[in-house]
């Protein structure tokens, strides 16, 4: 009897609704296009299509921009453009590894803490998050670098170990909130096993938080990498925007800005695009967003 006047769109899940909203967000889509462009550059570097010669000396000291060297050359005559392009791959690698792993760890531990809210497990996890948040970041990275004897992934591990806590706290809070909702009680009433309740009814409803957090951590990871590499605590083998800026910090005093500008502008573009995409994603996924 109530099968009257059901609105037009059929089978509209919350996901398709969010995707539709995102697709209509023009700034968000432009930002996404930029991100994808950078990603293509990074993929190309990995596949060896371009910038494979970033470490070769191909010119003189501090050459100006030219057709051969689009952004000129550095102190020892390496092509700045190739180095900047190659660094895109480094940035993506750091960003992806850190964002994905920190999100996964944060989601898992946050969900556990939230589900065992009030028990000792929750207390221990909360304590761990508090501890990790209270260690100065650079010191923590340095400590891990020391402890891991110059392992190339020391920086990644340090970032993951500190970044997951923010995800963990958010997910913990959300799980506690969702556990009190009536549909979880309804699942209990039909004897759905606890772990199925977590997997089927609770975690899927935290994915919007995870997606947004992952984009935010991607950006943080790229920005941290640059500073850590500059300080000599980050990327050891290879090239990154941070190392380029470290190189350039001597050059700028001598009036040569190409290295600095190339790294800065490329990095700014990626971070800006990602920030804007992250905002659009958040708008599209936010269930209570009005106006």
């Amino acid at each position: 009897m109530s099968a009257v006047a059901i609105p037009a769109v059929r089978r509209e899940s919350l996901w398709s609704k969010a995707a539709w909203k995102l697709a209509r967000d023009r700034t968000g889509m432009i930002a996404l296009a930029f991100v994808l462009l950078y990603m293509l550059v990074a993929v190309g570097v990995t596949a060896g299509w371009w910038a494979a010669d970033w470490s070769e000396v191909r010119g003189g000291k501090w050459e100006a921009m030219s057709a051969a060297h689009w952004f000129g050359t550095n102190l020892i005559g390496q092509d700045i453009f190739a180095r900047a392009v190659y660094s895109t791959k480094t940035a993506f690698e750091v960003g992806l590894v850190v964002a994905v792993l920190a999100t996964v760890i944060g989601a898992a531990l946050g969900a556990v803490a939230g589900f065992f809210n009030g028990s000792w497990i929750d207390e221990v996890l909360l304590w761990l998050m508090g501890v990790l948040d209270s260690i100065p970041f650079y010191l923590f990275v340095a400590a891990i670098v020391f402890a891991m004897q110059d392992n190339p992934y020391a920086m990644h591990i340090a970032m993951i170990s500190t970044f997951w806590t923010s995800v963990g706290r958010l997910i913990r809070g959300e799980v506690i909130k969702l556990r009190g909702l009536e549909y979880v009680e309804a699942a209990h009433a039909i004897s759905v096993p606890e772990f199925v309740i977590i997997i089927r009814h609770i975690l899927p409803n935290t994915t919007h938080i995870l997606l947004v957090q992952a984009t935010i951590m991607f950006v943080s990871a790229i920005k941290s990498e640059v500073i850590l590499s500059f300080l000599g605590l980050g990327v050891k083998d290879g090239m990154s925007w941070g190392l380029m800026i470290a190189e350039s910090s001597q050059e700028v005093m001598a009036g040569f800005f190409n290295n600095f500008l190339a790294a800065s502008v490329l990095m700014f573009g990626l971070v800006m695009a990602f920030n804007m995409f992250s905002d659009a994603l958040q708008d599209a996924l936010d269930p209570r967003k009005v106006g």
Partner: protein
Amino acid sequence: MSGRDQIPLLDVRNLTKYFAVRGGLLRRVVAQVRAVDGVSLSIGKGRTYGLVGESGCGKSTLGRAILRLHEPTSGEVLLDGHDILKLRRSELIDRRRRMQVIFQDPFASLSPRRTVAQIIREPLDVHRIGTAAEREERVIALLDDVGMGAEIRDRYPHEFSGGQRQRIGIARALALEPDFIVADEPVSALDVSVQSQVLNLIAGLKKTRGIAFLFISHDLAVIQHVSDEIGVMYLGRLVEHALVDDLYAAPKHPYTKALMSAIPIPDPKTKRSRIILKGDVPSPMNPPSGCPFHTRCPDVMEICRSVVPATINVGRKDLPHHVSCHLYS
């Protein structure tokens, strides 16, 4: 009153549920909230027990404690004579098939990222009832039972109005063919014109399927329509219980009288004297001594302040009318 001398379907004896309030550095229990304080009631097969009371009186907690969604502090809940509070978790799973629940908030009671079919099928999946094809058929039949068409099976909850969601929630509760359903304020979040639709649906289910209900509501008008008998709760205790017509014709407890007289009547010609209670409901963390209602009772006597009134039957033996009030002892 058939079945009066047989074992009732559900017999709740002296059920209590206290919530501990913790405080201090060592998180010691500093106080107890007596949400449900020694409630006894029984519900026969296919009958509807209406439980009425104002917010914070413990009626929802009682419903959840009976289902063991909140673990009761003490007491017994006998289903066909077997105490379900003594069951281990694994044994409880099987017993849960017979007891289901319908919730108040239609927007929070359905999992938002699952389709209607998935939601209604879940109990069948969990209890491994029938083959996949049979389950699909069941879902369609259940949707039909609650007045919804099969074409909505692949839609998501957010596409429906409150009344439609409530129907889906009812279909889920019916999936396991329970004998007993706790309906916790199932219409109070709905608009008035939709309330009646859902009430009719529930009344129909009771009639056609012989399901017993514990129907919890704050609204005496709503509860009158669906109930056979009614219990009135105040501060965690049952203060009056009678068959529905008895209670409406001759309420005994001063609180019941005040509650009934407070309902606005949609008829401008009816003018009546209204009992206006003084003050507010006391905190269940710190309930008054003696009769819990004595702080607001218009007929309060000296004895009410110190002695908890016993529950006595002021009706006939075959037509009991229980009341806990010193006025009648």
